[in-house]
């Protein structure tokens, strides 16, 4: 469990779980959570490549992950508020029932 390959496999597994969730769930909040999971898998890739890469002293992977986590947090806040606004309008978070453009 301590080689780059294993971490890459783990992160692709996490990505696939997030993708399956984002594709199959009906609740909009859970779809957003699936997207967050895919972002997390990408972050794990960054850290693993930084750790096993040729220049771990450069801190580039850590910086990339920190900025990526900040963007993911902003995205989660804006996405959840959009879901709240849509819920107030449509009275549901079910994606199959939000099927009209003009409400």
């Amino acid at each position, binding site marked *: 469990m*301590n080689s780059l390959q294993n971490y890459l496999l783990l992160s692709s597994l996490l990505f696939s779980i997030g993708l399956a969730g984002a594709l199959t769930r009906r609740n909009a909040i*859970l779809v957003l959570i699936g997207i967050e999971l895919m972002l997390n898998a990408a972050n794990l890739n960054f850290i693993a490549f930084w750790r096993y890469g040729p220049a771990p002293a450069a*801190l580039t992977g850590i*910086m990339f992950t920190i900025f990526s986590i900040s963007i*993911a*947090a902003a995205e989660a806040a804006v996405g959840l508020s959009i879901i709240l606004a849509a819920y107030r309008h449509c009275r549901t*978070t079910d994606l199959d029932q939000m099927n009209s453009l003009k409400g």
Partner: protein
Amino acid sequence: MILAVLAVAGTAAAMGLRNAVHCVLALTLGFAGIAMLYLQLGAQFVGFTQILVYVGAVAILAVFAIMMTHNDQSVAPPTSSFPWLLGVVIASAVFAVLARAIISSAAPAQGQPPQPAVPQPGVTVLQIGDALMHHFVLPLEIMGLLLTAALIGAVVIAMDRREEGE
């Protein structure tokens, strides 16, 4: 290995459970597992940031959103117009492609022995702050601007506008 199982089990439960609140609780477990993996990889700061941001903030935010939008349909069976099985098949295919690429391409990378895990002394917060303030200062400023804009935007979008209109 245990951490990997914890992370995968938590996230898989988060995507598979029926009750949305249970999903978020399992997701917290999965995020904590990923944070432990960061710690195992020697990125302490990122691990604790992960705990603060995801386990602390994003999970709480999701719980609040689920509670505010709660109705009886939230425990309805998660079958959608997009077939359940098709989504799983697509995700499995993506995983198969990725895994095959990783396994087939990692052979030359193993030829040069990577730096073993020991000589890495662990990155201190001092180094990270130094890099943030010198080399990465422009991205840091842009990130601050983005977070401010996201904060204001989230408040404006989620604001209840019915009182203003009437």
